[in-house]
C-alpha cells in the first residue's frame, strides 16, 4: 500500500472509514464526527486502540510511541489525524 496523501481531511476520512468498518458496522457515518470521543466514549477499548495504532502506523508509515497513544492525545479522529500529519511532516 502506498502512503496516503497528507491532507488532514483525507487522513480523517480514511480513519473514519476504518473505524466505521472495524468497530461500528452499520452506524450512520454522519454520527462519527472528527471530535467524537473514541476512548472516553466507549468506542475503542485498549485492545481496539492497539488495532488503530497498528493501522495508522502501517497506512502512513509512521511509528507511534506509547505515550502518544494515551487517551489525552488519541481520543478523537481530529487528534489522530493531527498526530499523523505531524509525524509525516518530520
Amino acid at each position, binding site marked *: 500500500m502506498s502512503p496516503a496523501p497528507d491532507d488532514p481531511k483525507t487522513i480523517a476520512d480514511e480513519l473514519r472509514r476504518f473505524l466505521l468498518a472495524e468497530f*461500528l458496522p*452499520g*452506524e*450512520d457515518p454522519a*454520527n*462519527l464526527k472528527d471530535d*467524537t*470521543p473514541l476512548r*472516553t*466514549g*466507549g*468506542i475503542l*477499548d*485498549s*485492545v481496539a486502540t*492497539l488495532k488503530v495504532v497498528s493501522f495508522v502506523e502501517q497506512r502512513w508509515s509512521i511509528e507511534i510511541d*506509547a*505515550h502518544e*497513544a*494515551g*487517551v*489525552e492525545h488519541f481520543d478523537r479522529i481530529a487528534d489522530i489525524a493531527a498526530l499523523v500529519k505531524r509525524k509525516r511532516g518530520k
Partner: protein
Amino acid sequence: MGPSSAPGAASLADLLEASARRDPARVAIVAPDGRTLDYRELDERADRVAGFLRAHGVRPGDRVGFCLPKGLASVVVLFGAMKARAAYVPVDWGGPAARNATIHRDCQVAALFLGEARADVLAAWPESERPRVVVRVAMGETGSSAAPAAAGAAASFPAGAHDFAAALAHAPLAEPTAARDRGQLAYILYTSGSTGVPKGVALTHGNALSFVDWCSELYAPTAADRFSSHAPFHFDLSIFDLYVALKHGATLFLVGEELGKDPKALPRFVAEKRLTFWYSTPSVLALMAEFGQLETLDLASLRHVLFAGEVFPVPSLRRLTKLLPRPRYWNLYGPTETNVCNFAEVVPPVPDARTRPYPIGPLCSHCDGLVLDEKQVEVAKGEEGLLWIAGESLFQGYWGRADLDAKVFLQRGGRRWYNTGDVVRWVDGEGFLYVGRRDRMVKRRGYRIELGEIEAALQRDPTLREAAVVALPDPEAGVRIDAHVAPAAAAPPSLIALKRWCAQALPPFMSPDRFVVHEKLPRTSTDKVDYPALLRRSAEGAAR
C-alpha cells in the same frame, strides 16, 4: 520457615511492620512516577493515616473507601485503614462515577480518600449520605503517573474535606497490636452482580494470611525479589502482589494505569526493573507475547510467571513459553470468595500437539474441595460437577446480602462450603479441569461479568425499550458479549450513543462488543426473553 516469616501474624499490617523492623531502609514500593518508599517510611505513613482516621471517628470494623490511581498514596491508605482495624474498600480509578459511588454507599464507608481528578464520584452521592470524612488527594500526592486533575476539580470537594497532607502529618496511632484479630475484615472487593448492583466480597485478615502463607511455602521469596503489581487494588490478584512481596521484605513495582494497558511497553518495564515475579491475567500476557518483542529483551531476571482469572488459550501460552522458556509458569485458580484455591505448574514449552487447556490443578493446602451435582450429591471421580470449596481462605459473606449468602453456602460435616459455580472434573495426574459455567457469569480479561448487570445498565437507557445480553466463545478474546436491543422509538439507535451510554454506566471490560438491533426481542411461549434464539442470531451474525 526462615526469618522472612511473620510468626503469628494477626493482621496483614503485621507483615509490613515485621519487614520494617527487619530491614527499615530497604525499598518497599516503587511508584509509577519513580518515587519510592522504604519500609520504615511506608510503615510510618500508614501509622499516621491510621491515627488520622481514629481521631476522626473511624472505629474498628468500619469501612474506609478509596478511589485513587495506582501509586504510593493508595498503598499508604490501605495499610492505614488496616492499622486502624478498619476494612479497606478500593474501587476502579477509571470506573464510572455512579458505580463507584454505589459501591461505597453500599458498605457505608466512614471515610473516603479520593484523588482530586475524580471529584465527579462525590457528585454522584446524595449530599446527606456522604461519608463523614472525605480526604482529597492532590494528583501530585498520589505517586501515580495519572494525568493531573482538570482545573476546577478541587472546587468540587465539600468545604469540610481534608487534605491528604494533613492525614500524613497526623500523630501516629498508638494502639497495642494485641487488639488485632485474624477474624476482623481486612478488605471488601466488589464484583459484578447479576441484578445490576455489584456485590461486596468480605474477607478477613485470616482469609488473606492463609493464602499468603501458602505462597511463602510454594515460592520461598526473599528480600532480593522484585515483584510486579499489575492488577489494580480492587482486583484480587493484588492480594498476592501486595502481601507476599511485603511480607518477605521484597520490592513491589507498581504498574500505572496507562502502562498496564500497553503490551509493547510492559515487557520493557519487566526488563528494566529486572522483575523476578510477574502476575497478571492471561489476556495481558498473551498481548505481551504478541506485541512485546520479547525476543529482543533481556528478561533473564524473571523466575516466576503467575496467571489467573481466566483460561489461558493454549496457542497464546505456547507462544509465550517458547519466547520465554526460563521462568516457571503457574496457573492459579480461585474466585475472589476463596482466594487462590487451586494451582498447576505449566512446564514450558507447551507441546505443539497440545490443544486442551491446562488444568486448574490440585487444591492448595489451605483449601478443601468437593465436586457435587445439582442435588448436592458428590459425583464419581472423573465426572463433571460444581466445585465447592471450604477452608481458611474462604470469605465471610457478601456485604449486607444474607440472601446471596444463603444461595452460595452449604453446611456439611460441620464446615461451611462455598459453591464456586464453576463446573470441573478430575483428571488423573493433572488435577481439576475447568469445564465451564451453568449460570450467566462470564469472565473477560480476568474480570467476572454477570450478564444481568450489563442488561440492567442497558435497560436504564431511555432510548431503549428492551435489552438482553448473551456471551459467545471467541477465538481472539475468549468471550464475546453481544447486546440485543429494541429501541424505544421507530428510528434505529445510534451505535455511538449506545457505546457512550455503556462507557458511562459500566467499566470498560463490561461494555458489549456488538449490538444487534431488533424491532422487539424474541420471546418464548411463556413470554420470557428467548435467549437460545438470541444466541443463534449472534452466532449467525459472527459467521457473516
